[in-house]
Structures are given as structure tokens and as C-alpha cells.
């Protein structure tokens, strides 16, 4: 298979452990079973992951987490992506935890972070400025003081895992330049939406003078939100690249097995060359993802501001293309529900929307490059 950017013994061991777990817990049958009910995730599997300490991999040690950093978390994401795992790991342990860690006052957020690391809690992050590095001029969610607390107003479509989260962490606009981080109860404000991807519990969010608790100590500007999205993008990109690897592997298995005209169809050169091109795209996308992860851990924010959109854009394009080509290379069975390949395509479509996909990522990349001396 393609070159693995994991090289240290530690990382390889973590990869093997995570791979063993996900292979067992997120088998194709179990994933299909979980999806057959309400869209969302496998609760038992989530409990097990929390018990194993994985939900706290990115949580600071002071809050009871392992504080192992982005690179290690990406190893987990890659495996979850490969299995199309129905899991709140992305929404809770990556998105919500990172927002809390980056933007919240530790005294106010400590309990939430400890909960993420220690209990099978369910949080979702609501980006009230728009999806991804949105340049939308008007915010989707605004925060207003109300007595001693705050109320939030606004509507956000298709927030990942919001349909089953207990609490929502919301980035909301306080005024034209200042933003804050808030906590609201999900009950009554989050409405489940059935999408093509049954492995995530998307919810439409409708906030109407909804009481909220402020978690930030100081307000922050758009640049801080973009910096947050840089980090989120790396996690999502790692899931996408994991899914793409699984897509390619399943397709290769099929090509090696299926026979037509008296030969395995994998011996037809036109198909081989297309697989080679997929492998090249996948290899480079994966390198971008793990370079971004390593860069996030070294704290080079300027480099991350380029690597993150690059990784998200290319991982998204590669997953889309690999799953599309995967369907085509499976021939007739590719577009039936019998094989898993179509499920990867559906997940690709959903993943591409979570942070608004390649076009938005490239716009971020261009903006960052324009900001540099020419």
C-alpha cells in the first residue's frame, strides 16, 4: 500500500492499537446496523473509546486529558475514517474540545473538557460565523446580554452530530468585531436532519433568545476563529484521507478478485493506470495531512494557516474522486447498496460540507498567501 507517514515506533504502535480496535468495533455489519436506526453513532463503541482514554487525547493534562497532540489524534481519525465509524469523536473530542481549549477560559471550560476526557459525553460545535473559514459578512448566530447571562439567536443548518449532542458549544458574534464562545443546552434547539450520510447525526440549529453561558474570558476576532478552523480542518482531513485509503483498498481487492473476459479485471492497464493516479493523489494528500498535524504540534501558526486548508482541500478532493472512481471501478455492483463503496461516497459528500470543502479552503489559502510579501 501507499507510504505511511507514520514512522516512529510510538506512532506505529498507536496506529496498530487503534486499527485493531476499529476493525473489531466498527465492522461493516456493525456500522450498517448502527446506521439502520437513527442516524448517528454507536453508543457502546463511544463508551469503550472514552474508557480507553481516546476522547481525551487532545485534552490538556490539567483537565484530565492525555495532551498527546494533533498528530496522535489524527492517527485515530484516520482509522475512524477508514471504517466510516459512526462516532461522536470528531464532533466532541476534536471539534468541541479544540474550541474549548483554544478559545475558552480554562476555569469556565475545565468541567466540560474533563467530561470529554472522562465520560461518554456528547457535545457539538456550532460555528456561528459560517461553515469553515467562511467569509460571509453577516454572522449566523449573534449573542446578546440578557440580565446576568446571554441569549443567542440565529439559524445554522446541518451541524454535525448536533442532533444527538447534549450540549452545544457555539461561536457567536457579540458585535461587529468581537466574538464569544457559549454553551447552550441542545434540547429544543437542535432538530435532526436525515442526510445521505447515516453515520453522523446532523442537526439543524434554531436559536431564539436561547439562554447561553459565556465560556470565553476575553472576546476574540475573526482571525482567531480562522486559526481554530485551521485545527479543525486537520482532524476532518485525517478522517477523509483514512476513508480514501479504505476506498482504494476495497477497490483494489475487487479488481484483484473479479474476473471478466477470462482475466482479473485488475490486470487491465487502463484501470491500473487510474488506480496509480488515485494512489498518487492519496499519497500526497496524506502527506499534507500529517505535515499539517506535525506543524500544529510544533505551534508554527503561519505554516499551519497554509497547510490546514491545503490538507482539507486535497483530502476532500481525493476522497471524492477515490470514492467516485471506486464506484465506477466496481462496475455494476458499485452503485448498489450491497458493497460498501457507495457508503464512502456518501460520507465524502457529507464530509465535504462540514467545513464547506475545497473551494472555501483554497479561498483561505489564497487569502493567507496574499497576506505575505510578494
Amino acid at each position, binding site marked *: 500500500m501507499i507510504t505511511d507517514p507514520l514512522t516512529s515506533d510510538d506512532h506505529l504502535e498507536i496506529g496498530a492499537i487503534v486499527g485493531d480496535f476499529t476493525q473489531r468495533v466498527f465492522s461493516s455489519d456493525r456500522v450498517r446496523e448502527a446506521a439502520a436506526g437513527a442516524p448517528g453513532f454507536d453508543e457502546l463503541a463511544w463508551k469503550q473509546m472514552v474508557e480507553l482514554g481516546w476522547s481525551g487525547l487532545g485534552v490538556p493534562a490539567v483537565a484530565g486529558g492525555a495532551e498527546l497532540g494533533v498528530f496522535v489524534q489524527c492517527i485515530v481519525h484516520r482509522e475512524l475514517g477508514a471504517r466510516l465509524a459512526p462516532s461522536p469523536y470528531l464532533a466532541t473530542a476534536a471539534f468541541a474540545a479544540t474550541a474549548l481549549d483554544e478559545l475558552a477560559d480554562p476555569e469556565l471550560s475545565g468541567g466540560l473538557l474533563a467530561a470529554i476526557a472522562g465520560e461518554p459525553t456528547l457535545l457539538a460545535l456550532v460555528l456561528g460565523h459560517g461553515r469553515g473559514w467562511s467569509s460571509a459578512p453577516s454572522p449566523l448566530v449573534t449573542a446578546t446580554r440578557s440580565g446576568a447571562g446571554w441569549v443567542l439567536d440565529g439559524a445554522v443548518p446541518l451541524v454535525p452530530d448536533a442532533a444527538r449532542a447534549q450540549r452545544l458549544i457555539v461561536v457567536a458574534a457579540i458585535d461587529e468585531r468581537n466574538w464569544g464562545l457559549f454553551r447552550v443546552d441542545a434540547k429544543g434547539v437542535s432538530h435532526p436532519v436525515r442526510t445521505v450520510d447515516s453515520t453522523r447525526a446532523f442537526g439543524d440549529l434554531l436559536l431564539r433568545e436561547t439562554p447561553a453561558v459565556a465560556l470565553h474570558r476575553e472576546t476574540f476576532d475573526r482571525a482567531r476563529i480562522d486559526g481554530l478552523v485551521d485545527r479543525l480542518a486537520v482532524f476532518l482531513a485525517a478522517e477523509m484521507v483514512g476513508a480514501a485509503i479504505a476506498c482504494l483498498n476495497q477497490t483494489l481487492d475487487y479488481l484483484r478478485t473479479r474476473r471478466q473476459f477470462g482475466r482479473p479485471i485488475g490486470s487491465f492497464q487502463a484501470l491500473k493506470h487510474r488506480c496509480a493516479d488515485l494512489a498518487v493523489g492519496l499519497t500526497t494528500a496524506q502527506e499534507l495531512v500529517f505535515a499539517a498535524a506535525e506543524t500544529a504540534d510544533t505551534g508554527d501558526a503561519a505554516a499551519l494557516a497554509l497547510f490546514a486548508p491545503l490538507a482539507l482541500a486535497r483530502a476532500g478532493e481525493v476522497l471524492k474522486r477515490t470514492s467516485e472512481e471506486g464506484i465506477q471501478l466496481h462496475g455494476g455492483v*458499485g452503485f448498489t447498496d450491497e458493497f460498501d463503496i457507495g457508503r464512502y461516497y*456518501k460520507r465524502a459528500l457529507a464530509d465535504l*460540507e462540514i467545513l*464547506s470543502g475545497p473551494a472555501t479552503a483554497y479561498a483561505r489559502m489564497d487569502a493567507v498567501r496574499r497576506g505575505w510579501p510578494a
Partner: protein
Amino acid sequence: MNATLLDHHVLGPALPRAPYDHPFRAEFRAWLREHATGEPEPLDQDARFEFRRRWHHTMAGGGWTGLHWPVEYGGRGADPVLQFMYYEELALARAPEPVNTPGLILLGPTLMAHGSDLLKRAFLPGILSGGQMWCQGFSEPDSGSDLASLRTRAELDGDDWVVTGQKTWTTFGQYADFCFVLARTEPGSARHHGLSMLICSLDQPNVTVHPIQQISGDAEFCEIFFEGARVPRDWVLGEAGQGWQVAMTLFQFERGDQGYTDHARLLVRLLDCERVLGEAGDLPPERVRAAREELRRLWVRCQELRLLNYRGTLLAAAGRSLGAVGSMTNLVWGELEKDLGSLQAEVAGARGLVLGRADTHHRLASRAASIYSGTSEIQRNIISERLLGLPR
């Protein structure tokens, strides 16, 4: 407003031999204005098929089905150029998609060419009216693209053929009354020899039709199991043992006609994308820009498909062989259909993920387009070997 300019805008520049001011267009358009509601098709497949079946009856009532069939068989004897305009007008009117095309396009004309008088009398009227629905039985689980390796067999038992085997990828088999089945009727024969084309009623206990669940939620294709199904001895098209030749005749009709309808329906859907993009949605500006670029590329590709269809039309009108134009049409259409399906959902942004929407459904359903009527790969094989003469 200038009506011809409107047509230009939707379908593209007027084609010299199928102009927008042609009297046939005017006549058909007048009828359509009265009968076609433009109501969108239901998303539920059963409801959708019913919807289309009703439209077929409406069309048949107006004498607008089987346009290309000879007058003696109830058609209008329309030449290919009229057919070309017919399908463009249907698309412009946003009429439901046709049903019973396996009967109208494939089996009907093949029956006229190879069928006995008995068979013609028995089956042609029902095809035209839509009273009897037809499906085809060619592909098998182990002979997807390699038809000559089929295994379904039929043996004579008294006055009946007894058919045993499995067909797959049969479009709308669950709604069909009859299936035309290619089966091996000479034991021990190989490849293209010893095959026969049989007409098999699906309304008998020895036939099981099993719809195949697709990623779109549809089940447009079926597996059909023949476990001793019975076919009257003379329900054979052409001579027994000559099934391959009959099938080749039939496939020629498939390649030839299919294209007529496609570019126009694609262009109408592209117009819808353009409208959605023109409205203030919540798609960020960079995605709107990218979608507009893609829209332009797809418009150009639709024009190319349109000209391939036009060329096929002119060749057919001149009584000349389509050559590899059929494979090209198929290839171009399949790839275009997928990309348009993607664009339609893309312009809806995140909403294009939500189940129960037409754009969401079309995107998923479109993935089959480059596979089910001969994969793009098979078309490229055919083009490179038969047209370009590259060695096997």
C-alpha cells in the same frame, strides 16, 4: 419576448436542419402546452413509475408514442430528425420521462425486423399503448460486460421452451409484464453461437423478480430468476440459434435512440442550476464562482452531446450506420450525467445532502449512468478497437 431566442438560450444555437421554427415543433408544442403540466416527478420510485405510466397513456391517447414506428403499426413513421425535435420538445415541456422504452425502442423495432406476424400482432399494440410493459434480459451476474459468456439456457419440452438461469441489471423488471431473454438453446454451443431471443411472460410462478437496492435508495434494476419458466415454442425472435444476430439488431436501436432525449433534459436541468445560482442562497461566494465555471463547462459538454445526437440523427436519416457514434454518445452522456448530478446538488450547498430532495437523489442516482448502459470503459474499448483500429 422572442421565442426562438428563448430556445437558443435553453437548448443552444439552432441546428440548421432542426430549426426552432419547424412546423413539427409548433404542432407538438401546442399539444404539450395543453397536456404536460411540468409537475416534477415524485421521488418515490413506485409513485414515479405510476406517474410516468399515466403520462405514457396520455401520450398514447394523443398518438404521440412510437413516433418512429411505421404507420401500419400505429406510429407516425417519423424520420429521425422529427424524433430529435420530439425529444427536445418533451424536455422543454418538462414532461415526465418515457416508460416502456425497452418495448418502444428496442423490442418493437426488433419485432418488426425479425418477428413473425403472430408475434407482431400479439405484442406491438400493447407496447405502443403502454398496456404491456417490457423489460430486457441480457446481462448475467458473471457476464456483465461480456455478454457472449451468458449461461441462461432454454430447452424444448413439448411446445414450450423451459428457461433456467439468472438475469441481472434488468431495468424496471418489477413493473414489467414481459421480458425478452437471450438464452443458450443449443447445448454445448459456445460464445455467440446457439443463442436464441425468447419472449417470456413474467406472470408465472417459475419467475422471481428481485429488485436491487441502489445507493440512491432506488431499485431501478432487478435480478430475474428463471427456474423452469415456460415460453411458447414460437415466441422466438428470428430463428432459434440466431439470437446473437437478433440481439445485435436490437442493440443498434439502443445506441441510436437513447441519445435523442438526453442532451435536452440535461440542458433543462442546467438551466435550473443557473436559476438557483442566481438566487441569493447561503453558498459562499467562492463556491458560487466555482459552480458557475463548472456550469459553463457542462453547457459546452451538453452542446457537444447535442451535436453527437444530431449527427446520429442525420446518419440514421440517411440510412447510414452509426459506427462508433453510439459508443461516443453513451460515453459522453454517462460522464456528463454524473457531473451534472454533482453540480445540481452542489448549488444547493449543505442542503444537497438532505434526503427527500430531488437534487440529493439525482446526485446519488447519477453515479450509475456511466455503468448501466455499457460502462465507460467498454465504450472506450469499442471506440479504440472498432473506430480507431488499435490492436486488441
